[in-house]
């Protein structure tokens, strides 16, 4: 349930579900997000679920903070149903041209690359949220041994498809972008497709993702 609702500026509700980052709290956020989305409330023009917050933006011409707050407080949102989620497999190639930070990670984490891959591939990750750039999934949780800080100096350009690690999360760069995550490989899979307006994101909040290692040949033949 929402712990506290405050205003973020004059045209948004800031719903606080707690301060920790875990699946339990995040699942509540996602449940609220999906329920409000289904309600199709006139005047709400954006919903941003994140680890433990949900921001609800509205059109100030149509609604104001108090009216939206009341609507949200009066929603009957059940916590019982299991969260709908898709299981998605993402192929990743760790050829040295793609695993830009694997050496750095070996040094930072004091384990070999084989051990890193062993702990990363085949494990189930939960999608906490998508965003920052279009379609980028924030996936958790990495095992403790794989948790590393961001690069001290972020890259100006991280290649599209790069798979990165930082702290307890993994993500995929849906297109070329600046960024500071530790890159361990690259996927040929399209994660964000702006031409598919109904469903542009392959991975959505609540989905379960596993990464599968593929060879260079499989990588280049993937989209044939």
């Amino acid at each position, binding site marked *: 349930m929402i712990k506290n609702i405050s205003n*973020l*500026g004059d045209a948004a509700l800031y719903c606080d579900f707690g301060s920790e980052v875990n699946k339990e709290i995040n699942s509540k956020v996602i449940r609220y997000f999906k329920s409000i989305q289904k309600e199709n409330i006139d005047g709400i023009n954006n919903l941003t679920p*994140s680890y433990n917050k949900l921001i609800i933006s509205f059109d100030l011409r149509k609604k104001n903070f108090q009216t939206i707050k009341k609507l949200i407080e009066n929603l009957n949102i059940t916590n019982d149903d299991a969260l709908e989620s898709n299981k998605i497999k993402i192929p990743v190639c760790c050829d040295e041209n793609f695993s830009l930070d694997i050496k750095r990670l070996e040094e930072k984490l004091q384990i070999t690359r084989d051990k890193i891959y062993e702990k990363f591939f085949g494990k189930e990750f939960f999608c906490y949220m998508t965003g920052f750039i279009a379609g980028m999934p*924030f996936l958790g949780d990495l095992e403790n041994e794989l948790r590393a800080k961001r690069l001290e100096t972020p890259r100006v350009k991280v290649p599209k498809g790069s798979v990165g690690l930082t702290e307890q999360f993994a993500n995929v760069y849906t297109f070329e972008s600046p960024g500071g995550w530790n890159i361990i490989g690259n996927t040929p899979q399209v994660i964000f497709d702006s031409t598919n307006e109904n469903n542009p994101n392959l991975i959505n909040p609540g989905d379960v993702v596993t990464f599968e290692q593929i060879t260079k040949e499989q990588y280049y033949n993937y989209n044939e």
Partner: protein
Amino acid sequence: MNKNYFEIKRAGINTTFQDQGRGNLYHIGIPFSGAMDNRNFQISNKLVGNEVNFPTIEFAYQGPLLKYFGESINFAITGDVKFIIRKKNDAIEGKCYQSFALENGDELDIISTNKSVYGYLAVSGEFDVNYQWSSCSVNTKANIGANNGKKIEDGQKIYILNINKNLSDKKLNYINTKIENIRVIQGTNFDYFSDEGKKIFFEKEFVISKLSDRMGMRLEGSKIENIVDTNIKSEGLLKGVIQVPADGNPIIMLSDHGTIGGYPKIGVVISADYDKLVQLTPGSKIKFKKVELADAETLFKLYDLETQNLISQI
């Protein structure tokens, strides 16, 4: 078909198609985008007899130089913009908030914005653009919107469909005034900052840095000291949100902002002041003034009423 078009002889610095933007996509990672200065965007359309949310060409600082081919058409430019219309044997100094005619072979040279950032070009017809999620607005970062999600480039052609045959001249008496005081509601992490930091935020002047674009406006000035944590767990952002990263310099999120961020939010610019905020040029001074939610709501109603009033005068 498609015989009416502009040939772009010079694209300008940041020239893009924009309309009202697209909502309900933050959760996917796509911001609103849309015209930075919504009032000037709407007025430009009304001056050429269009619906207020038709696609326009937004430019920043130096605008485009366009050569027109086709049947007679009207255009209007809004903002505070210097431009010239070059006819065969004549050159006319343009005026904002007024419609002008273009004939086959005329050139429209949008030289620059005067002490402001954004201007809008609307024509009495429809730019032939593609839409994504019901908006043509270009987001160059995700390559979404018209023109394959890219800026308008030198040499390209822009086609115009359904030209309005009834070319009546329209005019609005309006001066796009500037403001220095930007009104702000306290942010959700206001208490992350020291008393001295809070005081600096509301009392000192900041200077707008050159590193400002459609995504964000960076400010420089006295550093705002954080006494709790220079990071928060990443969460949603909105246009107008003011974040303060570890270096103590505020950044204001603008229309093409990243949808989530992990820096503490010290404040949010009120909706009534957003159009004016985006027009402030690098090097300008800016001061924040604290207002409460109820006042911000009233101020927006007044601002919106004023916009509707201006539109109805045309």
